[in-house]
């Protein structure tokens, strides 16, 4: 009954969406939204894609598109910027429909939305309120975010929808894993692969934002941002905003240090690591004694040492997936481990990652990885 009560009172979703936009205070807006590229030329580090899209922009003929690549590489930004350039600010709202596959469950809802949306005939007003001229081609763009989380059946149904409305709509599928898009769907789209951002353009972008928001950051902080976000610009910007919040909240604002970024990202200090043999260690390698915030009883060795270290790591609250990522980086770049050893380690880590995704226990699996890595790196 309570549920009914909620439903009865709740206004429709659309309304709240509009409300939000009128109300939202620009200072509260996530920087990711605030600094989305205005035009496709502003998109960082995807020169190839930008040049191809420029051509379609001039001819105003758009194919169906499939954008794929790791998160935070500008897929959504690109299509939004492109649509804005095509339709201008006035028509943008009526011409672009953004659907989130994991939000709107079930293909029937998608179909309904697309149908309603496509039914309204596009009006062409080429001169917009800002005085600029926009090509405003006679079709609408439907952006399907997270398309790879759609089921096979939904994708198959989507294929029909694409065909039915091909005359007046263009679809843009956005996803992380192109392999999860069924072939018939993928073959109807021009595919664009977004590569991870190179650090120089990411650096530039972060620097610009920091300057615009008047956040004092030095190069070390930006480097940490880039390394902790592993090529995901959205994450880097979010971290930056969080750090700025934390520093700006005090009076006077405290400067931002790389450690702050690490803390926000949940990354532990570089010196922390799990047992890779100290005997073979290179310069930056990890001796168990170096495991900084953690001090392990000196008389432990072998199994007990590893067990104790893992326990301490868990006590510190670091998440297993984060430990795994960092351990991975250490091992891949390790100077003395052989390729065979490294691949054995990689195998374990892959298994652990799978298990963790299934919800397995953090401690058991980190211990498992640590033990196997130890075994591999200490051949009898």
């Amino acid at each position, binding site marked *: 009954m309570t549920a009914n009560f909620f439903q009865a009172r709740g206004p429709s979703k659309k309304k*709240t969406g509009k409300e*939000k936009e009128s109300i939202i205070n620009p200072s509260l807006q996530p920087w990711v939204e605030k600094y989305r590229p205005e035009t496709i030329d502003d998109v960082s580090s995807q020169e190839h894609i930008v040049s191809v899209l420029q051509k379609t922009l001039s001819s105003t003929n758009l194919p169906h598109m499939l954008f794929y690549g790791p998160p935070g590489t500008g897929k959504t930004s690109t299509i939004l910027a492109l649509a804005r350039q095509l339709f201008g600010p006035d028509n943008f709202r009526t011409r672009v429909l953004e659907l989130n596959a994991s*939000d709107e469950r079930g293909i029937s809802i998608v179909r309904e939305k697309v149908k309603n949306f496509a039914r309204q005939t596009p009006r062409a007003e080429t001169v917009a309120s800002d005085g600029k001229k926009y090509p405003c081609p006679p079709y609408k763009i439907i952006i399907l975010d997270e398309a790879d*989380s759609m089921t096979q059946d939904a994708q198959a149904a989507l294929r029909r929808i694409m065909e039915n409305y091909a005359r007046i709509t263009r679809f843009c599928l956005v996803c992380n894993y192109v392999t999860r898009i069924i072939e018939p769907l993928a073959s109807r789209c021009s595919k664009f692969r977004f590569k991870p951002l190179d650090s120089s353009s990411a650096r530039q972008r972060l620097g610009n934002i920091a300057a615009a928001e008047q956040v004092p950051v030095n190069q070390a902080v930006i480097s940490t941002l880039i390394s902790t976000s592993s090529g995901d610009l959205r994450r880097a910007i979010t971290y930056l905003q969080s750090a700025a*919040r934390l520093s700006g909240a*005090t009076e006077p604002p405290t400067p931002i240090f790389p450690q702050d970024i690490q803390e*926000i990202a949940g990354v532990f200090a570089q010196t922390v690591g799990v047992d890779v043999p100290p005997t073979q260690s290179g310069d930056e390698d990890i001796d168990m004694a170096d495991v900084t915030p953690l001090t392990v009883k000196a008389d432990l060795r072998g199994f007990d040492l590893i067990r104790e270290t893992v326990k301490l790591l868990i*006590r510190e609250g670091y998440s*297993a997936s984060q430990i795994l990522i960092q351990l991975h980086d250490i091992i891949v770049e390790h100077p003395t481990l052989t390729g065979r050893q490294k691949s054995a380690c990689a195998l374990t880590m892959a298994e652990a990652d799978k298990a963790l995704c299934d919800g397995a226990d953090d401690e058991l699996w980190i211990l498992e990885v640590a*033990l196997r890595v130890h075994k591999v790196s200490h051949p009898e």
Partner: protein
Amino acid sequence: MLWVDDYRPRTLNELHYHVRLSQRLKSLAGSGDFPHLLFYGPSGAGKKTRIAATLNELFGGGVEKLKIDQRVFITPSRKKLDVNVVQSNYHIELTPSEVGNYDRIVIQEILKEIAQTQQVDVSAKHRFKVVVINEADSLSRDAQAALRRTMEKYMTNLRIILCANSTSRLIAPIKSRCLLIRVAAPSHEEMLTVLNHVAKRAGAGLLPQDMADEIITDANGNMRKAILVFEAMKMQSPDLSSSPPIVKPDWETYCYKVGDMIIQEQTPQRVMEVRAKLYELLSHCIPPTIILKTVADRVVQKVDESLKADIMHWAAIYENRMRLGNKKIYHLEAWVVKVMSLYKQFFLGIELGDLDDFI
């Protein structure tokens, strides 16, 4: 009622450890630009205490006027769900994982409701309400996806504070929308401070050093457990002088004995006996993962170094299987059998000398 609840710090200023973190939370709450937060860290480290203190900082003492409601939700399949909800005028606290796979409905309904009702209290310091979601790491994927959307949609009226033991099970979009706040377990000294503080406030007299050390070692970073044990010991011997033994919960001792059973004998008959014990543990609502870990801890203490890694390996494997399957007993028992057979082979290996090509 219990000391843990009675002497829980109410404000950020009262918190004893992680001072830097408290400062940050304080400045965040004061800034007017309050983000979604994700508190994570081991159990008993003080996440919930910090959340409550942050809420106090945000809205003042009014957040402590709490009431518990039982909300009823109807699933599309017309199943009825009961969820306990704690709320004040400013926030609402829920544990959606209680309803298993239906958590998405609970999340959607509650968040929608909160987002669409304006703050009633005109004098409130903030326009938004806060939703605290406990055990966020056991939310289903669906619920997490739903959460992700609402976090963006209703940013004006709503802030979310998630509380989780680990971030491994949270999807990346959620993590990237929250400010991550790691609450590490307190150190030995920090725990000592807290225990002494509790002792003082409870009028329990001076806590002997060796007793405190014992409690802290036993608690392994779990502050709540330490205080509970302390209170139990105090009740047992009110003058604290005779230093009573640590009051261990029954299940722990029980698990150790199960571990010993595994080491003593490795026969099908013993498997059956162990199974009965495992059933007993399960029927007392002890989470199977904890059973497995505790028994494994005991077993590895008692076996040869060369076996330890294997035993933990299988513990990890079967723990994972347990999550996928739905009858925990199968997987617990499979692990027991595995350990027994490893142990037995190990001894056969010793007796028969060189059996390298067999093992």
